[in-house]
C-alpha cells in the first residue's frame, strides 16, 4: 500500500491530499503522524488529483509530513457474538480493558436499505410499563420511536426505564441492548452504565461511548457502528435488539461542522441540505425482516434546542421516525414524572400493535377518548386564566378537572413502577368514569357496557 506525504491543505476536520492512483469514495484512510500516532479518516470527495479526507479524531498534529495510506476498502465493523457485554469507543475500539474483538464478520457500516418488500409489518406490542407510552403511544417491535426532550429534562431516566422494563408479554425470546452515546457527558454516561450494571443489562448490551470531550467528527460514525452491530445481532444471531442513540442533536452538530468545513451551501439554520437523507440512513435501520428471527427497535434521544419542536433536528427526525415521545418542561416543573406530554406525542405504528389479539379490544378507543378529553381540558386552562373558573359551564368544569386528574394519575408514575397494559387501560377507564357517560362519544356503546367501571361493578356486585 502506497504512503503519500502530499498533504496540501488542512481545514477543520478535513485534510486535502494529492495523489496519483485512483481512490474510491468513502474509503478508509490511515494517517500516521511524525511521532508515530495513527489516526483514521474517510474519503469524502475524490477527483483526479485531490482527495478530501475527513479525519475522525482531531487534526491536531497532522502536518505536511504526515503519511497518508488509502486502505482500498470502505469502513468495516468487526462484529461477533462476544461483543455482548463490551464497552467500545465511539470509533469502535474496546475501552473496557478487555481483549480485542475476534470478528466473525466484517460489515460495511453504511448499511444497505432493507428492501421494503422483505420487511415484515411490525405488530408485536412492547410493554414498557409506562402508561403514557403503552396506553396512548404504544411502542411495537421494529419501530423507531424517538424521545424529544430539552436540556435538563429527565429523558435519560425515561429511556432507562424503558430499557429496564420493556418486554413483549408472553414472550421469552432473547433480547439485547445496543447503546450509543454521542457527545454526552461522562456523568450522564455513568448513570447509564451504573443502571445497566445494577440490573444486569450490561451482559446483554453493547455500549459505544463517544463522550463530550471525544472528537466531534467521530460522532458521525458512532451511530452507524452501533446499528451495524445491532443488525448483526438481530438478523444474523436472532436477538430482539433495542438501540438507544443519545444524543442525536450532537450528531447533527457534527454533521453541520463538517458541512461548514467543506464550504457547502447550508440549508436551514446552517445544517446541510442533505441532513434528511443522512438521518434517514440512520433511523431507517430499524425493523423486522420476513422469515428472520430478530428485530431492531430504535429509541433515539434528542434535545430540542430551545424546546423548539420546529427546529430542523426534531423536525427532520419527526418526518422520518414512526412518531415521537415528547418530554415536556411544564409537566417536569409541576413535579410529574415521567413528564411526557401526550398531546404532541404520537406512535404511528400503535394501531398495528393494539386491539384484540395484541392488547385489548377497547385500547384504541380508550386512547382516543383520553386524548380528546385531555386536549379539551387542557385548552380550557387557557380560558380559566382569563375568565376564571366561575364563568365555565358545568361541562367545561368537568373536563378541566379531568385534565388535572389525567396528569396526576395517568401520567405520573414511579421511576420503578411497571404497570401492565391491563392496569393502564383500567386506570384510563377509571378516569373516564369521572365524565358523564354521554360525553364519551369516541367509544361505542358495547365497549362502554363491557368496560365502564359503572357496569363492571354491577356485574361483580
Amino acid at each position, binding site marked *: 500500500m502506497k504512503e503519500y506525504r502530499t498533504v496540501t491543505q488542512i481545514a477543520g476536520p478535513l485534510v486535502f491530499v494529492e495523489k496519483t492512483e485512483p481512490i474510491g469514495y468513502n474509503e478508509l484512510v490511515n494517517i500516521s503522524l511524525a511521532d508515530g500516532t495513527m489516526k483514521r479518516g474517510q474519503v469524502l470527495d*475524490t477527483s483526479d488529483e485531490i482527495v478530501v479526507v475527513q479525519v475522525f479524531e482531531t487534526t491536531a498534529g497532522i502536518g505536511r509530513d504526515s503519511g497518508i495510506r488509502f486502505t482500498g476498502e470502505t469502513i468495516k465493523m468487526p462484529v461477533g457474538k462476544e461483543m455482548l457485554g463490551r464497552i467500545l469507543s465511539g470509533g469502535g475500539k474496546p475501552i473496557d480493558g478487555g481483549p480485542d474483538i475476534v470478528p466473525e464478520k466484517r460489515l460495511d457500516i453504511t448499511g*444497505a436499505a432493507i428492501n421494503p*418488500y422483505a420487511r415484515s409489518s411490525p405488530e408485536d406490542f412492547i410493554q414498557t410499563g409506562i402508561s403514557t407510552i403503552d396506553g396512548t403511544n404504544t411502542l411495537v417491535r421494529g419501530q423507531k420511536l424517538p424521545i424529544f426532550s430539552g436540556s435538563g429534562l429527565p429523558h435519560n431516566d425515561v429511556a432507562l426505564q424503558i430499557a429496564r422494563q420493556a418486554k413483549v408479554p408472553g414472550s421469552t425470546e432473547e433480547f439485547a441492548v445496543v447503546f450509543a452515546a454521542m457527545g454526552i457527558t461522562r456523568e450522564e454516561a455513568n448513570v447509564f452504565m451504573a443502571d445497566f450494571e445494577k440490573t444486569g443489562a450490561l451482559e446483554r448490551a453493547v455500549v459505544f461511548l463517544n463522550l463530550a470531550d471525544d472528537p466531534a467528527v467521530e460522532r458521525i460514525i458512532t451511530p452507524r457502528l452501533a446499528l451495524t452491530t445491532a443488525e448483526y445481532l438481530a438478523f444474523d444471531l436472532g436477538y430482539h435488539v433495542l438501540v438507544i442513540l443519545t444524543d442525536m442533536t450532537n450528531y447533527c452538530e457534527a454533521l453541520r461542522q463538517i458541512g461548514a468545513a467543506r464550504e457547502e451551501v447550508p440549508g436551514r439554520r446552517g445544517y446541510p441540505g442533505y441532513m434528511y*437523507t443522512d438521518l434517514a440512513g440512520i433511523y431507517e*435501520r430499524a425493523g423486522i425482516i420476513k422469515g428472520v428471527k430478530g428485530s431492531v427497535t430504535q429509541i433515539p434521544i434528542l434535545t430540542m434546542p430551545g424546546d423548539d419542536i420546529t427546529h430542523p433536528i426534531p423536525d427532520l427526525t419527526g418526518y422520518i421516525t414512526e412518531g415521537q415521545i415528547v418530554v415536556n418542561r411544564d409537566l417536569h416543573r409541576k413535579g410529574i414524572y415521567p413528564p411526557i406530554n401526550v398531546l404532541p406525542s404520537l406512535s404511528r405504528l400503535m394501531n398495528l400493535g393494539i386491539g384484540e389479539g395484541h392488547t385489548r379490544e377497547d385500547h384504541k378507543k380508550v386512547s382516543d377518548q383520553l*386524548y380528546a378529553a385531555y386536549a*379539551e381540558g387542557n385548552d380550557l386552562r387557557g380560558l380559566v386564566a*382569563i375568565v376564571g373558573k366561575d364563568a365555565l359551564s358545568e361541562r367545561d368544569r368537568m373536563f378541566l378537572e379531568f385534565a388535572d386528574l389525567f396528569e396526576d394519575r395517568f401520567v405520573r408514575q414511579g421511576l420503578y413502577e411497571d404497570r401492565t397494559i391491563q392496569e393502564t387501560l383500567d386506570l384510563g377507564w377509571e378516569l373516564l368514569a369521572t365524565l358523564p357517560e*354521554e360525553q364519551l362519544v369516541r367509544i361505542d356503546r358495547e365497549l362502554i357496557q363491557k368496560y365502564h367501571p359503572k357496569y363492571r361493578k354491577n356485574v361483580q356486585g
Partner: protein
Amino acid sequence: MVTAVGLDAHMYDVVKVGDEELMGEVIKIQGENIIIQVYEDTAGIRPGEPVENTGLSLAVELGPGLLTSIYDGIQRPLEVLVDKMGNFIERGVSAPGLSHEKKWEFKPIAKAGDTVAPGEIIGEVQETNIVHKIMVPPNMKGGKIKSIQSGSYTVDETVCELEDGTAITMLQRWPVRVPRPVAEKMNPDIPLITGQRILDGLFPIAKGGTAAIPGPFGSGKTVTQQQLAKWSDAEIVVYIGCGERGNEMTEVLTEFPELEDPKSGKPLMERTVLIANTSNMPVAAREASVYTGITIAEYFRDMGYDVSLMADSTSRWAEAMREISSRLEEMPGEEGYPAYLAARLSEFYERAGLVETLSNAKGSVSVIGAVSPPGGDFSEPVTQNTLRIVKVFWALDAKLSQRRHFPAINWLNSYSLYLDTLHDWYDREVSPEWNPLRAWAMEVLQKEAELQEIVQLVGSDALPDEEQVTIEVARMIREIFLQQNAYDAVDTFCPMSKQYDMMKAIKAYADFARSAQVAGATPQQVIGIKTKNELPQIKFIKDYEPVLAKILKDMEAEFNALRAA
C-alpha cells in the same frame, strides 16, 4: 455524482457507470465533462472506471404485469430484487420492470384489414380483475393490420403485425419525463368519491383533478393518502412512497391484499401499483420515482380508466432535486431549492387531467400530493409553489391531530375550487338538498370560529342563547360528521348517501332546537336533549337507516315534550 470524459452523450441519457455497471443519468454537459447522477450508492467507485452510454433516456416498461407490482423509483420490481440479492438493497443489480417470461392470454379486438392509429386499442388481456387494454404505442405510426392472433404471449412476442411490417407487442417503453399524448384535455365534472366525509362532503376533488395535502409530521398525511388509495372510486391506483418510511410501505403491502374494493369485492391490491423509494434508498432514484409513477398512471388512463395517483411526499421529491442541484453547484433559489422548482412542480401536476384519449375514450388521472413543510410552516417554497397549481387544498392541522380529531383537516383553511363544476353532479346524484346543506354546515362552522373568539374572552355563558346552541350544533358537525375513524371497519368508508343522511340529521336537530327556542326553551334544555347523544353511534353501524330513523323520531318526541312543558 460522477463526471465522465470522452463520452458521446445527450442530456438525460441513461448510462452504466463503473465495473459494477451502476445505472445513472446524464444531468449536465460541460465541454468534455459529462456529469452523471447515479441511481445507486457510489461508495468505492474510483476515477478511471469505465462509463458506457445506453443512448436511451430513462423509460419505464408498460404492459401486462404492472398491477399488484411494487417497484423502486426506477421501476425495478422489489420482489425480484429480494430474490436476486436478498433482504437488503445492494448495488449493481438490474431487473426489468415486467416479467418477460410470463405468458398472457391475448384477445384481439381489432381484426386483420382494420386500419389502426397510434393509441388505438387492438386487444385486451385479463390481467387481474382489471382488463388490460393493449394499444398501438403512441410513438408508432399505425397502419393497416396484416395479421392479429389471439393466444398466449409473452410481452416480447408479436401479437399484431401491420402491412408495412411493423410488429406490435404488448410491451411499450415510454420515457418517464415526457407526458403521454392525448386527443384532448377536458374540464373535470365528476367527483372522485373517497368515502371520507370531510373530503367528499366539504372539499371534493374531481376525477382528473389535483389536490395537495400539506401538514407537519404526525398530522395524518400518510393515513389520509392511504385512505384515498384504499377507498377512492378510481379504477386504478398508483401509490408513490417517495422518500418515506420503510415500515409504512410494508403496512400497505400487507394490508392491501387483504382489503376489498367496495365496488368489485376483489382485493384492493389487484388495482394497485406501488412505487416505494424509501428515505434511505438513493436520492436520485427518489427524484425519478415521481415520474415513473405518473407515466404508469397515464398509461392506464390511455386505456380509458380513471386513475388516481398519490405521491407521498412531494417535499422529499423536491429535496432530492435540491440535493442534486447543490451537488451541481447551481445557483440556488429560495431556501436552497433550485430555481426550476416551481416549473418542475407545475409540469408534474399538469400531467393530471380528464382527457379524451387517442382512442376516443374518456380517462383521467387525479393527482394527490402530500407536502411535508419543515416545522409545519406553509409559507415554505414547496407548499407555496404547489398551492399555486393545485385546485384542492386539504390543510392538515397539528392542533387537531393532537386532540385526535382525524382526519385532521382544518375546515376553515381548506378549500376546493371544484365546488362549482361539481354542483350539478351533487344535485343529480345525491340530492338537490345537498348543496344548500353543505353551505349551511360551512356557515355554522365559520360562525363557530367567530364565536369561539368571543368565548375565549368572556366565557360561553356570556353568549346570547341562540349562539350557545350554534356552538353546540357546530360541535356536532365536528364530532359526528367531520371526525372519521380510519381504523373502524364501518366508519373507514362512508358512502355519499350516508354522508347526506348524517348531515341531514344534524340539521334536523338544529331546526328542532331553533323552533323550541322560539317557543321559549332555554339553551340548557335544548342542549340537554338526550336523543342527540345517540347520533354519534350511527357512524359505526353499517345498516344505520332504521336506527337513524328511530333516533330522529325519538328526538322529535323529546322536543315535543319539551315544548309541551
